[in-house]
């Protein structure tokens, strides 16, 4: 079943990723061009060859061990991919499982399939297999039975807790099972394991997790006893804090507060998270200490406590975290400040602090301040942001562009235009060298995209000739464009806005030709750019392009751009056009499959007209 869906899924995923993110993996830098208008993304439907399940059930009855194993595993995999009607495989699978003398590998594969099929009716049969002595079966089945809350295993699990010669893995399975099924009778034995100093640390911590799940009374006493051992016994301290993961009594709070001073960040993290859930005020007394903790998650939790119990003096502490070396921590601090800025009493202080960061020399502070001030639409920051477009750090270059676009101050438009023009001039250099802009290179595409969207949204007509220069896929034959699909998509989108309701037949023809180039050899374009052509054509009221849009909608394989065509056709013709239906994709790579012709993706209904 390798590469079940392989390249098609990858291409679709890659396209979606590219289309929805200016910087892969970074959601800070959103782009209005993807929201205006909202173009639905077609879903996917996985299809299976007709009769495939019957064929696998036939294989399940074969004498070959390999076929039976692979049939069972295929049924499990198909279930994960959404094959309907797999429940009818349950009875045959149970029959195979219970057959006397059945090969162990077959039993293992069938057990995997039954678990995947969520065949809770087979729990007793599976438990019988787990008890047969085969460790692989036991390791596979017992966690599933615990998830199913199967009560039949309780006695055996309880017995294992007391067994002298039980191996560690079996003991762990029993502890986990008893914890998940919440067997109260197990509490004394679990307590014994937690406190057994010479037991493996793994067992002690798992026993603590099980006790936390069962939640008997007076776990605080156990935690207290474990902590009494001092800081030498790490397993005991981790077990102690684990025991209190859901506790909220005053005694538990006191112990958790005590654990905030533990030298081990892993202990502190669990304690601070729990205390935040109970009452962030309990964290505040040691928040300064927590903010210095080497573990980012502890600092994140401290920021949460600080933000929930904010005061004006604490804003400075929060702002200082915008300089944190860990990107998640400084982003969290900035987000919290952004939310707190909705309070009128805090906003002036936050703006002042953010401006201070922006004016400062620390690039991390500049990056966060640019985002924060952009989010708050703080126009006085515009001048500084323009300067920071040329920062030595790519993060700041991009954040400044985003901030400028978010603020949207018309006064900054000429400078933004100059910057984009200069960049374009620079990248046109024959030798391709851009020594003054090396820092920006990693984010050129995203930065220019943000600024171009700003120019478009502001209807800055002076940019029209410049933006047209972004349209070619390659500025010169054979060269690589330094700005890629993101900036070019923004240019098309912006040109559409610049010519909103003002048809430009030449430009419309260019857009239409480029859109339809997908039907020519070596034609086509970046999916993001393709998607923007119909939108721009619709905005430009390019009625002459209706037939081209219709052709693309009906025949092209770029699904998102087809939906953009549907939107454009609706705009131009006044008649609603159905979006592209979910794309059918055949699951392939099975060990056994009926011969079938993979159906072509269902085409959309022809648009009216």
């Amino acid at each position, binding site marked *: 079943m390798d590469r079940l869906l392989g390249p098609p*899924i990858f291409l679709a*995923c890659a396209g979606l990723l590219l289309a929805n993110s200016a910087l892969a993996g970074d959601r800070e830098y959103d782009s209005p061009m993807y929201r205006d208008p909202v173009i639905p993304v077609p879903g996917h439907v996985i299809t299976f060859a007709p009769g495939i399940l019957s064929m696998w059930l036939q294989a399940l009855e074969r004498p070959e061990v390999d076929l039976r194993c692979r049939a069972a595993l295929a049924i499990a995999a198909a279930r994960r991919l959404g094959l309907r009607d797999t429940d009818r495989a349950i009875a045959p699978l149970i029959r195979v499982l219970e057959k006397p003398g059945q090969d162990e590998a077959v039993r293992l594969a069938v057990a995997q399939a039954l678990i995947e099929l969520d065949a809770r009716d087979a729990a007793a049969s599976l438990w019988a297999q787990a008890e047969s002595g085969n460790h*692989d079966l036991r*390791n*596979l089945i017992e966690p599933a039975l615990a998830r199913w809350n199967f009560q039949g295993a309780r006695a055996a699990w309880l017995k294992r807790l007391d067994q002298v010669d039980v191996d560690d893995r079996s003991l762990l399975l029993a502890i986990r099972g008893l914890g998940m099924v919440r067997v109260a009778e197990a509490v004394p034995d679990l307590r014994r394991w937690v406190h057994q100093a010479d037991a493996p640390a793994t067992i002690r*911590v798992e026993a603590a997790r099980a006790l936390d799940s069962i939640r008997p009374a007076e776990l605080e006493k156990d935690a207290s006893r474990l902590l009494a051992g001092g800081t030498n016994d790490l397993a005991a301290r981790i077990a102690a804090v684990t025991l209190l993961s859901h506790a909220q009594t005053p005694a538990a709070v006191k112990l958790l507060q005590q654990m905030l001073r533990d030298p*081990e960040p892993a202990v502190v993290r669990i304690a601070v998270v729990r205390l935040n859930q109970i009452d962030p005020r309990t964290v505040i007394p040691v928040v300064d200490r927590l903010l210095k903790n080497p573990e980012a998650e502890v600092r994140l939790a401290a920021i949460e406590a600080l933000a929930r119990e904010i005061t004006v003096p604490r804003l400075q502490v929060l702002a200082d975290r915008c300089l944190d070396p860990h*990107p998640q921590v400084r982003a969290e601090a900035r987000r919290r400040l952004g939310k707190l800025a909705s309070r009128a009493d805090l906003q002036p202080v936050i703006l002042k602090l953010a401006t201070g960061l922006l004016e400062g020399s620390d690039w991390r502070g500049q990056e966060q301040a640019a985002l924060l001030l952009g989010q708050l639409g703080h126009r006085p920051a515009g001048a500084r942001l323009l300067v920071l477009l040329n920062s030595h750090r790519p993060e700041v270059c991009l954040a400044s562009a985003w901030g400028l676009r978010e603020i949207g101050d018309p006064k900054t438009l000429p400078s933004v235009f100059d910057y984009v023009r200069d960049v374009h001039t620079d990248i046109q250099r024959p030798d391709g060298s851009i020594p003054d802009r090396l820092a920006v290179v990693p984010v050129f595409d995203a930065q220019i995209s943000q600024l171009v969207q700003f120019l478009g949204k502001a209807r800055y007509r002076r940019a029209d000739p410049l933006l047209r220069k972004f349209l070619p896929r390659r500025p010169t034959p054979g060269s690589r464009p330094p700005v890629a699909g993101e900036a070019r998509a923004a240019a098309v989108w912006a040109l559409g806005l610049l010519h909103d309701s003002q048809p430009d037949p030449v430009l419309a023809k260019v857009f239409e030709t480029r859109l339809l180039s997908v039907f020519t050899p070596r034609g086509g374009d970046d999916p993001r750019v393709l998607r923007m052509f119909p939108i721009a054509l619709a905005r430009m009221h390019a009625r002459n392009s209706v037939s081209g849009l219709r052709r693309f909608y009906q025949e092209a394989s770029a699904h998102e751009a087809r939906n953009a065509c549907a939107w454009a056709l609706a705009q131009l013709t006044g008649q609603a056009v159905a979006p592209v239906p979910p794309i059918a994709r055949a699951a392939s790579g099975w060990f056994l499959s*009926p*011969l079938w012709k993979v159906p072509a993706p269902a085409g959309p209904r022809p648009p009216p007209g």
Partner: protein
Amino acid sequence: MAIPPRFRMGHYEFWILAVLGALLPIQAAWAQGPPLRAVEVTGIEPGPARHSLSDQWGTLQLRLSNGGTEDRNVRVVVFYSDRPDIQYGRDVWMPAKSAVSTWLPIGPPSRQWIISDHCELQYLLYDRTDRAGHLQLPSRDERIRSATAAHRRHEVFTDVFLGEGQSDPGEDRDSQDAIEAARVFRQSAGLSEMVGTMEGGTLPPVPEALSGVDHVILAGRCLGNDPIGRQTLRRWLQHGGTVWVMLDRADPDVVADLLADAPAPTIVGRTTLTSVVLRRVSGGEADRQELEKPVAFLHVLTDRSDTVLHTVDGWPASFTRPVGRGKVLFTALGARGWYRPRGAQEQPSPFPEFPDTPVSLPALDDLAVDLVPVGKAREFSVTEFGPLLSDQIGYSIVGPGPVAALLGAFLLAVLLAGVWLRRSRRAELVGWLGPAAAVVVGAVFALWGEQTRRVIPPSVAAVNLIDATAGSQEQPVTGLVAVYRPTAGRATVAADHGGALQLDMAGLQGETLRWIATDAGAWHWEDFDLPAGLRLGSFAYTTHLDHPPAAGARFEANGSLNGKLLTGSLTGLEDVVLSTPSGRPRAVILQPDGSFVADDRDLLPGQYLSGTVLSDKQQRRQAIYRSLLGEALPLHLQNRTALFAWEDKGDVPFTFDSDAHRGGGTLLVVPIRFTRPTAGSHVTVPGAFLQCKRVLEGRAASRPPLRGNTPIDMRLRFQVPPKLLPLKIERARFSMRVRAVARQVTVSGIAGNKVVALKTSDEPDGTLEVEIQQPEFLHLDAEGGLQVEVAIGLPLRQLPAAADGTPNKDETWTLASVPQLSLVAGP
């Protein structure tokens, strides 16, 4: 057009031709079997774990389609185009109107392909629906079906197991990091840039599935839904494979199954780091790195049998665990934490296609040394069992003594006859008497040989070597089988329950040999004719024991090691020996109930079995021990204490001729699991159980040198068995047998940065012993190591040169063996 009358057919001729014309296609069809045009092989390629063939066994993926309306049983037979005499086949069931994908193990290619990047394969397709096996010729123009498969000469091969095939690793940044780490690791180990990937799917349930792969890196959810594949991977590991588990990426179920019944490392927390300080446990400078993009780090609780190599913030960042003959390396720090970007000013990477390959941090270099040891590790070869098997079968060729005696008698007889005939003046008779005597002697030889061969019945004997994996029902077995046949003829060699058998094929050239896989673990050699005589074959399989062998032991105050050996179904164990981390074996007294005692005395060099008179069998076994334990131990046995014991049964899961006599034995190797001394008691740990390594650049790196001509300062680190920790040392005794003529030898204790001489000896020649009782020199480091320094100084006087002008041999100082340190610990 009119036909001339002489060419016109008569009535009879017409009917004769018509009948012939009708019969021809039938005859052709008869030759080819029933029409099977609908069945086609649609693809043959190496995979799924390794996408190229090497000079070892490998696995092919076969794809077939049956467009017909009836179910078919087909056989695909594949062979290398230049070796049509060795063929590999797979029986496949194909329902009507179906496409099938399956696997086929294939042996190594011939030498012709060794330097090529591809192999030419040819294959035959048989319809076996009616069990007769009709060859199906291709429907295309060519008469032979052929395919090309990628081939790479075998080198250490690394395979990265990634996700479930739902996304492309080229787009998954974490997958790219894992592949990058694999490449950097190979760069550090001096290997090529070749990194394979497996992105999902299932592993075939055959040992050949991972043949040609040396390291598997688990860096995704691959095998997460394939319990059978997990078994295959575990068995490969137990048989000596190496798995690197990236804990931040690997599927926990896969990791758990890999470790059999030992608990997987418990993850108690996940974090991300922008500042990484990687410290070596064995000391030395830490690797520091500031990262803009945080790297994952897991807080992991390890098992006591794990060996922690590096830490970050006090938590294990890398650690190893032996599993059978294999090893698992765990890393809790994300891939990017082990390397740094290559600077613009730095030399490009040695990999031409990847010039920007990052630079490994020293910590990754350590891991590379751990996974790819410098120099070839000594491997124990099962061929050492050969003499024992020959004894078992009783077969031997006529020895050199009798042959020499017979030939000597012949020559003497010819000589005497010549002298006598000469004296009798009938010398002309020598002309025919000589050849006649030679014919007689030749006939005697032939009869003798035949008699020797026939007196022994058909026999099969095997010696199994079980390297017990602690707590696992599955045990890896390797060994040697000897098959003896007094006469030539058809032989049965097959398996129904897995295992690989490499029978010596010498003398079978020219015959077509066909190895057929019929199911998972089921194969046979078809129409297999073996000549008379003895034939050896190495094998490997995995046996399933309901009660896994286990041995636990505890040190006593008098230095003896008392323990219990549980062997389950293995009974009657004898000739027991204990191997130790120092490489000095100990004799063991094993009681019938499994309890055993090993005293603290070393065995004499070359002696492994106690007792004054050894039987022939014991002498053979002792020879095997000498080979196995005599020099440096095989890699998986180094630094371990293990019991070696023999059982007289040698069952193997292979089918041979049913009338053959059976015999053989089993050598069981069980690692000792130490238990802590009882509370409040004293314990003596003999020096043999503490591994000694020389500390270089702050790291316990190598075995100390045993001779030299120059002065030396050696810091030695003695590792206490981890299971005994924590241990409060009360006193220690250092001892070494040293000869250092005209030199001064000083033994010093170490307390922090302080080195204090404890004993100095001038010109020692014998055992130098030092009692260490000062508490400051008895502190164990965090991993249970105690350090001692040995300094051998400059010559105190000039030694006269030898008569031939060469340096005096006494200028060389020598240690008779690695120094030892025994410990006494108190409550």
